[in-house]
């Protein structure tokens, strides 16, 4: 049994041609199955027609695939041998699907002790030494293959039970199922309409992968001479016969093993193709064309004018995809002065986050800067790669992102992550890093730094995690902090604490902050200046007090008016 076919490995989505390949593979399997089924009709010879004068021959017009050691036609034997082989696979797959789907749905639907029992059974099935048990069944049923293949399907069904159960549980947790229950749907209709359709995809994928595994076992048994009833061949037994004539006729080995490999390869391709389709269906509309090489930039090439600004963005254009590239940010220019908190505000799709990521060289692989430039201090970072950013990231800029709970590596303690960042982003000598790490944690007002150092991220609350992230960002003593919706995922009281901290850091360390948010109330609270973005361009900018008092653009006015107010405005 080959492992690739059992383990659920994910294929990278969006591979062009996977589906075309899968269709070819499917056609191939169907063709082989039809030919095998028609063996009695289309075979040129009888499967046991011996011609002892012409043994171990190479392919010829009489014998398209040559002859074996008894002078029997190989093509004929392949066709006939396919019958017990593919029938065995079919029996195993049917058992696999029936048992797996039934138990999986029952476990996922009923839950409670039934679920515990079935999950236990599935675990046991997955831990049984499958092939040896199949041997036992073969010995007891006197080499009859059918019970052996039923056993194989049953033993294999453990993994399908798990997959089906997980799918059912996943779908039942979806809001649309809650909505359907609230709409008054009965359990039968709920199952038929909302749950079963989600199960079909994974089951078909698993079945095609299991078919490959069953083929490997079936032919393996045949190779060992188990469950074979000579002179009727199986594909596996033909490999066995070929092995006996290895030195004299290696060709036999190529043909007999080749057909097994091709069918098994085809089954794997079908599985992969189905998985891609299924994944695409789940992803629905989020996909985008991959990879864009950095295209030539329409850059004037004028040297930067000297300035105190810690960050200068000049006429920036960012595009996604490459055929053709679509600009999502156009003509964006702004500066962040030392000690200033600049707000970058906009709705989703305004390009505010992409702009920020670009300043740190962190654009996703399918996006690229197509015009303009970005300067950190006096350094042009527009075209820098990861290596070029060494000495800039961490030491001159820091990043805080939206979801503090996933912004720290779950496998490492707070202390080890801080020490690591200090190692690469600061000049603090090794002996003093621990002390410095604790100092950073006190700086962000985490009580008992010693204890926090030893904690893992999952042992922190959202507010604490965000403070740790800020401490990490401050490790290299940067002059600019880029904060991408740093409080959006937090409760309002925790948000107030984080905003207080940022203000304090600005006051005491002269830190500049580029603060990205969708929330105008937060802008009013923390920013000195603000830039309003809409659909990739800047629509208005100015000092916060002026902009709120006298918004000039209708869009800005609408944004301000639409933000709910806790206190009656003027």
């Amino acid at each position, binding site marked *: 049994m080959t492992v*690739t076919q059992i383990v659920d*490995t994910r294929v990278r989505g969006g591979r062009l041609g996977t589906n075309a390949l899968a269709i070819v593979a499917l056609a191939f399997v169907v063709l082989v199955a039809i030919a095998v089924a028609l063996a009695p009709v289309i075979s040129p010879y009888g499967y046991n027609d011996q011609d002892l004068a012409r043994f171990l021959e190479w392919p010829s017009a009489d014998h398209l695939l040559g002859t074996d050691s008894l002078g029997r036609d190989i093509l004929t034997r392949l066709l006939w041998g396919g019958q017990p082989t593919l029938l065995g696979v079919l029996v195993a797959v049917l058992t696999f699907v029936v048992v797996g789907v039934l138990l999986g749905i029952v476990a996922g639907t009923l839950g409670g002790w039934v679920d515990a029992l079935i999950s236990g059974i599935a675990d046991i099935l997955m831990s049984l030494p499958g092939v040896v048990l199949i041997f036992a069944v073969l010995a007891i049923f006197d080499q009859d293959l059918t019970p052996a293949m039923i056993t194989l399907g049953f033993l294999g069904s453990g993994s399908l039970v798990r997959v089906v159960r997980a799918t059912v549980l996943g779908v039942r947790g979806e809001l649309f199922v809650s909505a359907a229950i609230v709409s008054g749907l009965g359990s039968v209709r709920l199952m038929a309409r909302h749950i079963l359709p989600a199960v079909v995809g994974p089951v078909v994928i698993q079945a095609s992968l299991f078919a490959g595994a069953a083929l490997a076992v079936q032919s393996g048994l045949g190779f060992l001479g188990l469950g074979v009833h000579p002179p009727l061949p199986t594909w596996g037994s033909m490999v066995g016969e070929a092995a006996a004539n290895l030195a004299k006729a290696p060709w036999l080995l190529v043909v007999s093993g080749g057909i097994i490999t091709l069918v098994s390869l085809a089954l794997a391709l079908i599985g992969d193709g189905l998985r891609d389709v299924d994944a695409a269906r789940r992803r629905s509309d989020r996909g985008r064309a991959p990879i864009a090489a950095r295209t030539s930039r329409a850059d004037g090439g004028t040297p930067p004018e000297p300035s105190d600004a810690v960050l200068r963005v000049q006429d920036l254009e960012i595009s996604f995809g490459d055929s053709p590239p679509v600009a999502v940010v156009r003509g964006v220019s702004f500066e962040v002065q030392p000690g200033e908190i600049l707000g970058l505000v906009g709705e989703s799709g305004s390009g505010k986050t992409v702009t920020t990521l670009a300043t740190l060289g962190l654009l996703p692989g399918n996006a690229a800067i197509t015009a303009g430039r970005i300067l950190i201090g006096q350094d042009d970072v527009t075209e820098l790669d990861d290596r070029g950013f060494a000495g800039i990231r961490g030491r001159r800029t820091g*990043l805080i992102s939206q979801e503090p709970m996933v912004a720290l590596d779950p*496998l490492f303690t707070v202390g080890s992550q801080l020490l690591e960042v200090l190692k690469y982003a600061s000049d603090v000598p090794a002996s003093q890093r621990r002390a410095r790490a604790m100092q950073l944690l006190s700086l962000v007002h985490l009580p008992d730094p010693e204890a926090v150092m030893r904690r893992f991220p999952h042992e922190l609350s959202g507010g604490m995690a965000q403070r740790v992230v800020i401490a990490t960002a401050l490790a290299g003593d940067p002059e600019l902090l880029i904060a991408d919706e740093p409080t959006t995922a937090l409760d309002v009281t925790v948000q107030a604490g984080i905003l207080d901290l940022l203000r304090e850091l600005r006051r005491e360390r002269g830190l500049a902050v580029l603060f990205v948010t969708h929330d105008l109330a937060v802008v009013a609270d923390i920013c000195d200046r603000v830039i309003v973005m809409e659909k990739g361009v800047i629509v208005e900018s100015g000092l916060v007090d002026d902009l709120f008092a006298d918004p000039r653009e209708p869009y800005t006015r609408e944004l301000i008016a639409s933000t709910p107010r806790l206190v009656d405005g003027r």
Partner: protein
Amino acid sequence: MLRLIARRVLLSIPLLVAVTAITFFLQSLIPGDPARSLLGGSATQEQLDALRQTLHLDQPVLIQYRDYLAGVLHGDLGRSIFTGEDVGQTLANRLPVSLSLIIGGTVVALLIGILLGVLSATRGRAVARFVDVFSLVGGALPNFWVGLILASFFAVTLLLLPATGYVPFEFSPSLWASSLILPVAALSLSGIATIAKVVRDGISTAMTQDFIRTLRAAGVPRRVLIWRHALRNSAVSLVTVVGVIFVASLSGTILVENVFVLPGLGSLAVTATSRQDIPVIQGVALAFTIVTIVVNLLVDVSYGLLNPKVRTR
């Protein structure tokens, strides 16, 4: 973590009972008189009675099972119907062969698989494409066929390595190693394919995570992100896969041992099956089950060690 281990240990009891019960009760399903079908039509009445007594066939089946279990608990696995050898002793003699193969195959798969996986995640599309194709083909090739091809090429054509046979480690480590190279290669191929893919996907997924972005933005270099953070994070799922590969190798080794004529548990199982030597099959099934239980336990422990959420609970 303790709960995870406790669950695994608790599950192993029904597992052992299931394996012994299945193999045991199935034999009572043998149509007709098992003793006669084992000895053939020409057997005398005394021979039949003697065999029935050896197999305890003269007693009710539940009593037989109880006696068998009691024997197993005392290390007595019965005797082979054909050779009369003690099954426990036979297993003990052959286990090292199979274990060398399986452990060797898993280690090779792990080393080469991780290397290929990391390379394909970091070295651009061509390498990634190669690993894709390699995984697909490597997973589809039947290992006994690969074994035969390797044997015909390296042993029959090039005469570089032995085509068949096994040399015990105590006898000569170098000959032991050379007798294992081809079998291990055949056995590890699908494992390499799987691990390469799991590692590649694991690293690619991890590299898009927020925490990698945090560390990257804080100035941690890319090689540290890959080898320390991304690989460690994908190791959590890798451990499970290695367990599956190890257990699958138990099945794979049966075929590979037969290709290379190695005196391990696999070839024993095949001979026993073709001769309906039930006590031996029972013994092999039991041995494989115990190995599986131990491996799953190790997987759970290392899973816990790698994942602080499980460890600190």
